[in-house]
């Protein structure tokens, strides 16, 4: 019997719903490509907001990049920042509304290229908001250009022969830099490619909102992610490639955890 031949009511007799799409996501279909890490990250982040019951007290700051339309999917009050400036916008929102939960959501260009100064300084000031950083080592929205986090040898539209140290420099491990700053309280690297990874990310995000409530400082959650379209692979191939190639340079785990 398959789900589309069996009447659902009969099929679930005696069962209860243990998982459904959270209310904190709008009904709009994500424009993201099939298998995109952004989709999963949105889904997980909003699920945590829903479970913690903080939808009414959460304000998000969206970036420029593939997730520029994050505000269409997240059913919370949200501001669209200029490219790279989400950390500055979030700083102000949190300082003006210190009792609300504030997060910024950024990609690798937004946070680690054009937004590097704002990222470092918000972290350095220990601004009390959550940074969600999606690292897929490529600029998806603008058509697949190199990102600061692109791996050496990786081919993109602006490194067609593969990234080299001589021309493009090294991949930027921004989470490691941010972890060195005393203003950051919790810096961790996660992913969303497997159920275990998703469960782990949920724990991490839940902890981060708790730390925000306790006014501990900036929490920085990097989500190493795939970009199937930019990498020119299927979603499953992309996840496999990510584990084999991105994880050695960007290993999941806590870079800085409270004792």
């Amino acid at each position, binding site marked *: 019997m398959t789900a589309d031949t069996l009447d659902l009511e009969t099929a679930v007799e005696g*069962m*209860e719903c243990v*998982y459904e799409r959270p209310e904190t996501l709008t009904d709009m279909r994500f424009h993201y490509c099939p298998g995109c890490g952004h*989709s999963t990250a949105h889904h997980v982040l909003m*699920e945590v907001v829903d479970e913690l019951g903080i939808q009414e007290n959460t304000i998000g700051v969206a970036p420029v990049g593939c997730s520029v339309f994050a505000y269409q999917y997240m059913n919370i009050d949200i501001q669209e920042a200029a490219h790279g400036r989400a950390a500055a916008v979030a700083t102000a929102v949190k300082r003006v509304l210190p009792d609300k939960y504030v997060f910024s959501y950024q990609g690798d260009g937004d946070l680690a290229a054009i937004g590097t100064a704002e990222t470092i300084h918000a972290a350095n000031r220990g601004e009390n908001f959550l940074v969600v950083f999606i690292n897929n080592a490529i600029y998806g929205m603008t058509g697949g250009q190199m990102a600061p986090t692109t791996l050496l040898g990786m081919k993109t539209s602006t490194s067609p022969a593969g990234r080299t140290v001589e021309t493009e420099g090294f991949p930027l491990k921004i989470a490691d830099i941010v972890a060195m700053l005393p203003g950051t309280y919790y810096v961790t690297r996660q992913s969303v490619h497997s159920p275990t990874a*998703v469960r782990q990310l949920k724990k991490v995000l839940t902890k981060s909102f708790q730390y925000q409530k306790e006014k501990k400082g900036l929490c920085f959650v990097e989500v190493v992610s795939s970009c199937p379209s930019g990498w020119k692979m299927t979603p499953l191939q992309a996840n496999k490639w990510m584990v084999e190639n991105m994880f050695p340079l960007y290993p999941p785990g806590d870079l800085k955890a409270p004792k």
Partner: protein
Amino acid sequence: MAIKGMVKFDIEMCKGCELCIDACPQKSLQLSPLINAQGYHYVVLIQDNCTGCTNCALVCPDAVITVYRENRKKEKVSVARISGVTENITVTIDDKSAVGPEAGA
């Protein structure tokens, strides 16, 4: 006897990315030969052995999956709370219960 579960897919929102197929420990998911209005082959359940483990739903980028599971213990299902954060947080199971098909992937 294994706990029984069921999944429901919002087939119009599915993009056929196959991540749930890979995540299902029962190997019970497959892309349909049919396509939805967006042109994607959507996911369907092909065996009657779903345990409601929620692996597929957790990993689904587009949040199209609803999961049902029988509750043999007749206890109220609780969710994570903002205080008293512990290590054993999942979306579905109270942290006191040890049972659960969460050993997936």
